[in-house]
């Protein structure tokens, strides 16, 4: 028994480290989803608009960052470019198309923004080609940091978590403490009234839309360094972001944050733990297959369960 406690200690230490690593991965995915979901939920809360093209803004951010970074050699300039490009694209789309949709029903909004996805996707394929672009992690954030319990974790992913927390805090301050935030809150509760008070509601809408777009663009740029930058990269994230805001309650930033962390953790931990758990009762190959299939469905199952009990999400506005 006591012949080699070290080995036993070694395995538990490794699995603790692995567990922490997976938890951090889940948190990082959650934070990413929050950047997407915050914009979506803000746009829905203030303007009552469902925007399928939000994933395209994410893609625009990633492309802007990759192109700028490869032209200038600086990831940071790329990051700024992604914010500007996504916000500008958002503002233009709002003025040209989205503005006409506020009074329409959700079906028209879905269709028009679906059309925008087709336009943006084919447009960028035309512009950048079908081959993925690659974006390097900036030198300052390369490398890994040690985790408690052994193991190491990529510094860049930690930085993403940091950015996400900072954005969440910034949004909270913006909405609760500034004049713009006051107008946004007023717009959520009564848009006729704030228009009657002499506030230029049209430019408020454009600002909110551009803000949401910039957050999506930032998310795209940050993730672009982890994956490849390509057409269609926004769509899986968009659908996850929808799940997030449905779970959290559409229109609620707090709900978006809770939902995003929940979805990020459940998805990552499900993929990590389900095959292992099933391996205890099933043969390994079957456990891997069933576990993998179940894990990819897990967040949708959780969403269905939550909606079955709270049809308007956890933090219904």
């Amino acid at each position, binding site marked *: 028994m006591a012949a080699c406690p070290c080995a036993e200690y070694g395995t538990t230490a490794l699995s603790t480290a692995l567990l922490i690593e997976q938890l951090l991965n889940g948190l990082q995915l959650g934070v990413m989803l929050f950047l997407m979901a915050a914009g979506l939920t803000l746009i*829905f809360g203030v303007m009552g608009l*469902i925007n399928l093209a939000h994933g395209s803004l994410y893609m625009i951010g990633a492309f802007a960052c990759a192109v700028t970074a490869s032209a200038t050699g600086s990831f940071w300039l790329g990051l700024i470019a992604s914010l500007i490009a996504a916000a500008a694209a958002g503002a233009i789309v709002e003025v040209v*198309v989205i503005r*006409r949709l506020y009074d329409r029903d*959700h*079906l*028209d909004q*879905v*269709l*028009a923004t*679906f*059309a*925008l*996805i*087709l*336009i943006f*996707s*084919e*447009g960028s*394929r*035309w512009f950048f080609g079908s081959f993925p672009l690659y974006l390097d992690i900036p030198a300052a954030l390369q490398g890994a940091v040690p985790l408690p319990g052994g193991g190491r974790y990529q510094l860049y992913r930690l930085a993403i978590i940091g950015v996400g927390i900072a954005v969440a805090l910034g949004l909270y301050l913006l909405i609760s403490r500034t004049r713009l935030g006051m107008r946004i809150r007023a717009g959520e509760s009564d848009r006729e009234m704030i228009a009657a008070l002499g506030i230029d509601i049209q430019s408020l809408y454009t600002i909110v839309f551009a803000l949401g777009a910039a957050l999506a663009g930032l998310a795209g740029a940050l993730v672009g360094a982890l994956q490849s930058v390509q057409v269609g990269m926004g*769509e899986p994230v968009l*659908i996850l972001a*929808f*799940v997030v*805001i*449905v779970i959290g309650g*559409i229109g609620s930033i707090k709900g978006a944050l809770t939902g995003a962390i929940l979805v990020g953790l459940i998805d990552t931990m499900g993929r990590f733990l389900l095959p292992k758990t099933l391996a205890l009762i099933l043969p390994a190959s079957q456990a891997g*297959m069933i576990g*993998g*299939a179940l894990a*990819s*469905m897990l967040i*949708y*199952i959780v*969403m*269905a369960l939550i*909606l*079955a009990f709270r*049809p*308007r*999400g956890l933090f219904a506005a």
Partner: protein
Amino acid sequence: MITRETIVNAVIALLLLAIPLVAMTLGEPFYVTLATRITILALAAVGLNIALGLGGLVSFGHAAFFGIGGYAAGILATHAFNAEPLFLGIEGTTSMPWIWLVAIAVCGLVALPIGAISLRTTGVYFIMITLAFAQMIYYFAISWPAYGGEDGLSLSVRNLFPFVSTAKPLPFFLICYGALMLAIILFLLLRGSRFGAALQTARQNETRLAAIGIAPFNIRLVAFVLSAMVTGLAGALFADLNRFASPSMFSWHMSGELIVLIILGGKGRLFGPLAGAMLYVLIEHVLGGITERWQLFLGLILLGVVLFARGGLLGLLAGKARHG
């Protein structure tokens, strides 16, 4: 009374029938396949139109049922081909009528819980939850390796229909055409029935419907399930057309396309889905012949229709719909 819309509908139905007949006499079987594609897409959209047009239920997840229908055809045919029983000793089959029955039944069984959960929500929540359910099934299909996973499932030969040689393009088109016309008649009967009246009232004024003692939830659930069944039948035919059940049949682009067909044709119209499918395949074929980037122009056309021509193609041809 014969209205302008009735005439337009008849012309569209005859036109669809005429395309493959003319194409065959000209020796161009490709256009028969194109017409079959139109027919099957229209059938799927007629199914969706029961939920969307009559019930106002914007399901963004009907690709799930389209795909289930397709995989029902693929899985049954694969088992029959390999002579392996499916489970509990049930044999696979290559007989279309049986495949359709299974496709329709499975779609109904899947649509029941999905509808029961989704219909607790309304508006945007409903759109998103139906989308999420379809994604769930999509991810299941691509991560379940037994039936091809991401590669999809090929059918070695087209399935069989009694007394008809389905491998030839024209007889297969006629089968699909028959199915579409039956579905359109079903839609017409539903719309005129007491059930249809209740369903349309659920869309227009839920409170009134509840006040006369009919639960809107039950009416909508039945409509959702029926709608899924028709779309599932279309999926089975689609797999037979391509001899391939592809996981892309489950994708959310497919759900979007089905909605697009209805809107292009004209929302709430009997022949809207067919008119939309004709226009869609025409755009795809003509623009796709000119440029690889046809989806960009499809997007622009769609945007134009949503923003400026809300009645769709039938609105243009047959005037405004009588009720909104």
